[in-house]
């Protein structure tokens, strides 16, 4: 019974994928979309069911589907582990996934390849579930690679545009770099623990390793390798550059994959492996620093972007950075809390921007928007709520989670706290800049666009409303004082974190964070509402803002540091080495050919000569035999 329900949870999206691949086109757009959505809703229902079960029994559900790999001492099962962490992830992956599928029915309705879109989305959900529920690192790795593949397919969904294809390839390759790290980490752990099962590894590290630490250095390397894997998937420095480019995909994809679910896989993995990271404090420190720097750098780039989705993309990178900051300080539950609230409001923001783009027939440049508040009231209201949430305004969800991260940072390291706070102020600024430029003042697009402006249909606004509601109340799951989430996640954490009662210091930090957010908002208000400032054309930007606008030239830096030398090397191989090698190989052929041509002359075809040679040869042999005696 339980097994089949677990399979139902896991395989329904896959069935949806198969249906859409084989029959989607024939079935028509509405049916294809409906099947795709229902498949995910079924998974969501199953997640809720298991969540309830876990809440009553308090016991994690383990299912072993089959023996998978047996190599020497290493034994890997294809197993499923439904514990507090994976169920929490499942709930918001399938929940938000369902909403986004619903949204896509309307959003993608004009696309001729809608069935393909739903097939990819279903496949993505399937792999994401695999990633989350896997009971060992290798099953997780399958999901990890699978979501990467789907991300690639969906970024390049409009494959007729070469730029989009390039963006897809970039995402894939950047992820591959991280995945290499992840794989090496898996190998090291397999050789150290003799198992990849999370529970077995936890036992190994908590009992055997803690008592007699061996291979301390190797353990650190393993943790670092896993973190490198996480930087690829979760877009951290130095591998973050793929995420902004990934906005080439359709907006629901950006919302589902590149904001709410896939990019949080790195955080999921590190939380899963918390017993390992707790033992390697140096690596934890690296994670915290990388997270903080990423948060700051991405937020500062976001200040000047004009593409509405790019702003959100950099915002995502920045928020992920904050989550890593929390992870690095060992505050796993805080990071998970922010993942969940972020999933709510960022999905809502992306879907809202999709609604705006939909109304403007594909226009993404905020300089050509404005004044949409009156024509799109629902989109405006929901996005405003989410913006307040991400900016960290009391009492929206983002306030609670971000505040906790900053609180933890304050306790551990004041410098990281300052960096995180600055990033938060910047977040408030660029998010309100986005709101002001999009929804306030006059419309700056063409007359024709203005004529066609309209609020999106209810299939689009319904998910927005639900997500905005969640973004409002999402903080309830871990309010200071009740800390439901912290208690809920306690069983999966190796070391218990004490939670401080609310004191004057905490209230002061909250006040500082809130003040910072308000400063950012007021700053944006004075610049874009009062002064009516509209960002200049690309060519007119100069000075330091040009550097920021061009994303600190990181892409160009990577191009000149890695891509160009690599291309040069390839070119050298192609133009010099390959012909040289070719000549050598061809030379053997020429020599053999020459020998053959010479030998050919012996074959005169004159039988008399052959016979003569035959007799002479015979005589030679006979006389040799005589002489040899």
């Amino acid at each position, binding site marked *: 019974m339980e097994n089949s329900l677990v399979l139902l949870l896991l395989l329904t999206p896959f069935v949806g994928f198969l249906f859409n691949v084989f029959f989607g086109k024939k079935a028509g757009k509405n049916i294809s979309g409906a099947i795709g959505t229902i498949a995910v809703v079924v998974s969501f229902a199953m997640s809720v069911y298991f969540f309830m079960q876990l809440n009553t029994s308090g016991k994690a559900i383990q299912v072993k589907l089959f023996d998978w790999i047996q190599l020497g001492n290493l034994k890997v099962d294809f197993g499923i582990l439904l514990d507090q962490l994976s169920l929490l992830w499942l709930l918001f992956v399938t929940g938000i996934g369902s909403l986004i599928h619903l949204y896509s029915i309307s959003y993608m309705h004009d696309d001729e390849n809608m069935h393909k879109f739903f097939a990819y989305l279903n496949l993505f959900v399937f792999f994401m579930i695999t990633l989350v529920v896997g009971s060992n690192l290798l099953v997780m790795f399958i999901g990890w690679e699978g979501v990467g593949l789907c991300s690639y397919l969906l970024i390049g969904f409009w494959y007729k545009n070469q730029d989009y294809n390039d963006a897809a390839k970039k995402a894939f390759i950047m992820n591959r770099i991280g995945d290499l790290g992840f794989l090496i980490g898996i190998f090291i752990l397999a050789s150290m623990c003799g198992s990849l099962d999370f529970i077995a590894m936890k036992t190994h590290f908590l009992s055997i390793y803690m008592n007699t630490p061996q291979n301390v250095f190797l353990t650190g390397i393993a943790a670092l390798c896993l973190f490198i894997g996480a930087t690829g998937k979760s877009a951290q420095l130095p591998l973050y550059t793929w995420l902004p480019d990934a906005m080439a995909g359709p907006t629901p994809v950006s919302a589902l994959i590149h904001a709410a679910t896939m990019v949080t896989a790195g955080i999921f993995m590190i939380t899963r492996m918390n017993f390992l990271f707790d033992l390697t404090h140096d690596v934890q420190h690296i994670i915290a620093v990388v997270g903080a720097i990423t948060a700051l750098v991405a937020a500062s780039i976001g200040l000047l972007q004009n593409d509405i989705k790019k702003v959100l993309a950099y915002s995502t990178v920045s928020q992920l950075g904050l989550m890593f900051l929390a992870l690095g300080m060992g505050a796993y539950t805080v990071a998970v809390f922010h993942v969940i609230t972020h999933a709510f409001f960022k999905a809502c923001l992306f879907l809202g921007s999709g609604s705006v783009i939909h109304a403007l027939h594909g226009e993404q440049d905020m300089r050509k928007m404005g004044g949409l508040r009156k024509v799109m009231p629902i989109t405006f209201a929901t996005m405003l709520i989410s913006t307040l949430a991400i900016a960290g305004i009391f009492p929206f969800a983002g306030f609670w989670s971000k505040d906790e991260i900053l609180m933890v940072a304050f306790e551990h390291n004041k410098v990281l706290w300052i960096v995180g706070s600055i990033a938060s102020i910047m977040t408030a600024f660029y998010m309100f800049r986005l709101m002001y430029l999009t929804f306030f003042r006059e419309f700056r697009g063409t007359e024709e666009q203005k004529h066609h402006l309209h609020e999106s249909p209810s299939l689009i606004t319904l998910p927005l409303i639900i997500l905005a509601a969640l973004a409002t109340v999402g903080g309830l799951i871990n309010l200071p004082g009740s800390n439901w989430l912290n208690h809920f996640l306690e069983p999966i954490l190796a070391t218990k974190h004490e939670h401080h009662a609310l004191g004057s210091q905490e209230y002061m930090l909250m006040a500082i964070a809130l003040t910072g957010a308000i400063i950012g908002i007021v700053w944006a208000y004075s610049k874009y509402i009062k002064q009516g400032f509209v960002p200049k054309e690309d060519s007119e930007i100069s000075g330091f803002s040009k550097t920021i606008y061009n994303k600190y030239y990181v892409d160009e830096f990577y191009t000149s540091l890695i891509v160009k030398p690599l291309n040069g090397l390839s070119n050298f191989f192609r133009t010099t080495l390959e012909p040289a090698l070719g000549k050598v190989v061809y030379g053997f052929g020429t020599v053999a050919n020459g020998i053959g041509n010479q*030998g*050919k*002359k*012996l*074959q*005169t*075809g*004159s*039988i*008399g000569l052959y*016979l*003569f040679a035959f*007799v002479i040869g015979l005589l030679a042999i006979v006389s040799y035999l005589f002489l040899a005696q």
Partner: protein
Amino acid sequence: MENILNQIGIENYIFLSVLLFCIGVFGVLYRRNAIIVFMSIEIMLNAVNLLFVAFSTYWQDAKGEVFVFFSMAVAAAEVAVGLAILVAVFRNIGSVDISNLKNLKG
């Protein structure tokens, strides 16, 4: 039975055999007619057969004679195949002159 070798010495058989063999060799080398080349080869074969029989008698051992039977059977088969080839060659190029058979030139 009285040994025939007492009347005619073994060396005479060897001389005859060598003579026949040489005739065969020169026939093969100097004649252009394929049939005569063929006949010369037969002479060489028979020279060897003769030597076999002579030594067989000399050593009072029947193995040599057995060999001769084998060699004669093989020679008969060879003649059958060879002459058939020659007939086919003649039909194709209208001659059995071996200097005309140059189709296998490399």
